[in-house]
């Protein structure tokens, strides 16, 4: 019931804002976005789930199961619930949304009510993605996310916003279609062994090895093909190199608050789905291909980092480094160790916060200087001390400075990856650690050029000082990042509990 109320509060809040006036909508939407936050916090404090929802022996928190319809041989149900993997992501979504709204007060100057309305609608859809356990319910939310995002980029974006928006739209839609075909082929391969498209039932049937062939494909090929289709489908969303080309464009064109949601939460949809579908439902294929997937992950890490190194636009730097960071998530997933899987999930949260922080500080710089190019900026630390300090601290967090969430996340992933049993695991870990060096390289370079040295801004800067509502979100995010860095157990305990059954699926090691 709480889940439904939270989703509906965001949904109807969004509709209400769409109909409200431009003057009131910024404040009103902020207050309304606190309702889903409250709902999520209540759920977090009363969270009583245990285990991994898709693996038997779990307790799903706040579960609802209502019959929706029957479609031929299968029934569809409104089945939502929360486990230790979805809870942190819900928290991330509900925290980032009000903060993104605050960060929009300065840069968004036209069609305000539509902007804030769409932000709340996308929040509702994102909630749905993280709580749904029925495939079609999940898929509706999954696709619904695209619609507000398309408008948010296309209306309030930069000069090439329309192209970026339609590219994002079609790219991710094609990905969904590929994924759909793969998943449904799997469903029909399971034949009579399932009666519904409930992921929990599908998972149970797959673990019990009920998969038969479909048409000319035997069960083995079908499984591999389905895995591949879903991997590509979700890989676009993550994005994994080479499916990443939509991301820099979308990020550069999107306004700051939309970048925050895009990098902070939308990319996590991809890794969340990979974790649920590829790495849980088809865990045996994932484990068999672990070495290959880890290679893809390492390529994403290194290639994304090198691309970031070559950029001069601050937003592009963070966008490409997101690709790199998502590579770590993928690497963590391949390991099938508690630390690896848990670290990957923790990295989703950590990166959501860190990239949100960096995008917001870049937004502040842009508001004041009207440029994002490193070449146009120099010595900002002098004139914009608060923004500079936050960006620099955030960047150090991004590099994995201890006592910040990024350190914990990457440490867990590397610990897991070193202990992983697939071939070349240690080599890949070492290589991806090298990624951190590059990250440190470009971030330090950026800091040095933009914030230090003699003050100079090309173009026509206003250098208006950020207002209190611009700074608050940054401070809050920073505090959470530090809190998670000092005490990762705030959420890691929950995550660990949810990924343990997955790691033990193949008799995995307990802690390493």
């Amino acid at each position, binding site marked *: 019931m709480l889940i439904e109320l939270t989703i509906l509060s965001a949904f109807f809040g969004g509709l209400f804002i769409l109909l409200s006036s431009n003057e009131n909508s910024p404040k009103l939407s902020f207050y309304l976005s606190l309702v889903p936050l409250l709902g999520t916090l209540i759920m977090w404090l009363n969270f009583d789930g245990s285990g991994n929802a898709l693996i038997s022996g779990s307790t799903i928190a706040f579960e609802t199961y209502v019959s*929706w*319809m*029957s*479609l*031929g*041989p299968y029934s569809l149900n409104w089945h939502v619930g929360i486990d230790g993997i979805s809870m942190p992501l819900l928290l991330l979504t509900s925290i980032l949304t009000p903060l993104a709204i605050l960060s929009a007060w300065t840069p968004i100057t036209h069609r305000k009510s539509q902007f804030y309305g769409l932000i709340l609608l996308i929040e509702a859809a994102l909630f749905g993605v993280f709580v749904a356990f029925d495939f*079609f319910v999940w*898929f*509706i*939310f999954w*696709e*619904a996310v*695209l*619609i507000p995002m*398309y*408008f948010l980029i*296309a*209306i309030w974006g930069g000069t090439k916003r*329309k192209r970026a*928006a*339609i590219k994002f*739209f*079609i790219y991710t*839609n*094609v990905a969904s*279609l*590929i994924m*759909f*075909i793969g998943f*449904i*082929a799997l*469903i*029909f391969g399971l034949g009579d062994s399932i009666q519904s498209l409930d992921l929990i039932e599908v998972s149970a049937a797959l673990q019990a090895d009920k998969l038969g062939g*479909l*048409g000319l494909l035997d069960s083995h090929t079908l499984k591999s093909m389905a895995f591949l289709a879903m991997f590509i489908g979700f890989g676009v969303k993550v994005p994994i190199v080479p499916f990443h080309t939509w991301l820099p464009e979308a990020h550069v064109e999107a306004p700051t608050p939309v970048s925050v949601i895009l990098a902070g939460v939308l990319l996590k949809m991809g890794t969340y789905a990979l974790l649920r579908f590829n790495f849980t439902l088809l865990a045996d294929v994932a484990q068999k291909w672990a070495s290959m997937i880890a290679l893809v992950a390492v390529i994403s890490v290194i290639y994304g980092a090198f691309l970031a190194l070559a950029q001069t636009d601050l937003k592009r730097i963070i966008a490409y480094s997101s690709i790199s960071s998502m590579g770590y998530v993928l690497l963590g997933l391949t390991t099938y160790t508690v630390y690896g899987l848990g670290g990957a999930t923790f990295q989703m949260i950590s990166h959501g916060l860190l990239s949100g922080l960096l995008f917001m500080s870049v937004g502040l710089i842009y508001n004041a200087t009207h440029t994002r190019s490193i070449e146009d900026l120099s010595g900002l630390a002098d004139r914009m001390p608060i923004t500079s300090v936050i960006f620099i601290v955030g960047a150090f967090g991004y590099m994995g400075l201890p006592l910040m969430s990024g350190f914990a996340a990457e440490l867990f992933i590397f610990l897991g990856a070193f202990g992983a049993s697939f071939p070349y695991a240690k080599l890949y870990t070492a290589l991806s650690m090298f990624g951190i060096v590059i990250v440190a390289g470009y971030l330090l370079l950026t800091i040095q050029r933009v914030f230090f040295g003699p003050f100079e801004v090309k173009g026509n800067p206003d250098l208006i000082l950020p207002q209190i509502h611009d700074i608050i979100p940054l401070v809050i995010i920073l505090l959470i990042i530090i809190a998670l860095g000092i005490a990762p157990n705030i959420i890691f305990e929950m995550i660990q509990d949810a990924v343990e059954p997955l790691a033990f699926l193949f008799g995995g090691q307990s802690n390493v």
Partner: protein
Amino acid sequence: MSELILLIPQLCLLLSALLILGYNTIFPKSTKLVILTGIAAIGSLGSISTAIFLSSSKLQLGSLFGGQIVVDGSSLFFVVIISSVTLLVSIASYDYINKLGNQAEYYSLLLLAATGMSLMASANSLVIAFVAMELASLPSYALVTYLKSNEGSTEAGLKYFLIGALSSAIFVYGSSLIYGATGSLGLSAISQSILYSSSISGLLGIGILMVIGGLAFKTASVPFHFWAPDAYEGAISPVSAFISSASKAAGFILAFRILIEAFPIDVVSTLGLDWTIAIQILAVLTMTLGNFAAVLQENVKRMLAYSSIGHAGYVLIGLAALTGSQDTLVIGASMMHLMIYGFMNTGAFLFIALAEHWDIGPTFKDYRGLGLKAPLVSVAMTIFLFSLAGLPTGGGFLTKYVLFMAAIGAGFWWLAAIGAINSALSLYFYSRMVKALWIDEPISDLNISSRRIPLGIYAAIFIAALITILSLPFFSIISDFAMTAANVLLS
């Protein structure tokens, strides 16, 4: 007499057509358009409600008049689609034809065509099928040329008529070949005689192909799709809405019934006449051609016309994937899609009708900035377009994915994959319209606020939008209805 009770939905439409003609004869000078609209709306509403009542009642459904006509779940399902479209179009026409004259003729032609289409849904022999098709076609030709002094309208009507006449001839010739081969015209009798004789394959095969060709015209599928873009563009938009939604649905139920009842796969495949292969080719060609051509259009109505061909291609998956493994789901999915399509496509065309009412030009560019001037209808249009593209703003999302799902289940993952490519492509051209409405810089001289509010079109668009949206959460109503209909058809 008792047989007529089952035909009440059709009779409602016929009766209201005759009432309108009668009213016009008695009061030829009457300009009370609201009365004509009222009769048409009540007639189609009556048809919808009686069809729903019959399908849920305990009455014995079945074949009438010696098996010539059949009233069952599937025929009633399509009567609901056809009459719903007729209802929406009647309401919307109230504003549209206000100044155009010949209103009584317009409404009676509309209702007569709807009668023909709903009879197509019930045709159980090739003769009745042909008669019903002509009853639907002839008024449609006249409706397309309703603006008889307009060059585009007459040209469209002529094209429609010529291709229609050709395809009718092909259908009749095909029927005669089938009759020659089997000695019967009733659908079940045909399948019986095929079952008991095995030396008739050549003639029969050509006959089946020709019948498929004739049906392709009605459903605007390859190879008889040429007329559609011209006819939809030339006709007034309410008529385009009517033909592209209702006529397509009627063509499809006829195709479903003839192919499934008269030529069951398990019977004809032993003769080497597996028509699913022909339909697979047609499905791929139809959806690919429709969607690729739609990408190239600058004219919104032509874009919708080609996209309507594309949707015919999706629905053809329902026939193409009949291999025995997931038949009910496959046919049911096609039916669901036609039902939702009836609302979302009609809504989209009626939005164009509204734009024409406001003197907005025909191309995408002319719609720039309309979203901010007329937000409510533009939201409705966005809902229609995204639902047509297969995004979750309406039931079109579920029907499209259920169709793909059914195809995969029947082993045709490649058909689903081609459908998926087309679907992604369709997102491009549908979102062009969305972009024009909401995102592009507004045109400065767009002025719609001074005009009288066309209540009829508004009402029709909102009803269509509401049903499109609600069909997503309440999809089970439509899916159960469609699955029952599919079950009846297949048993």
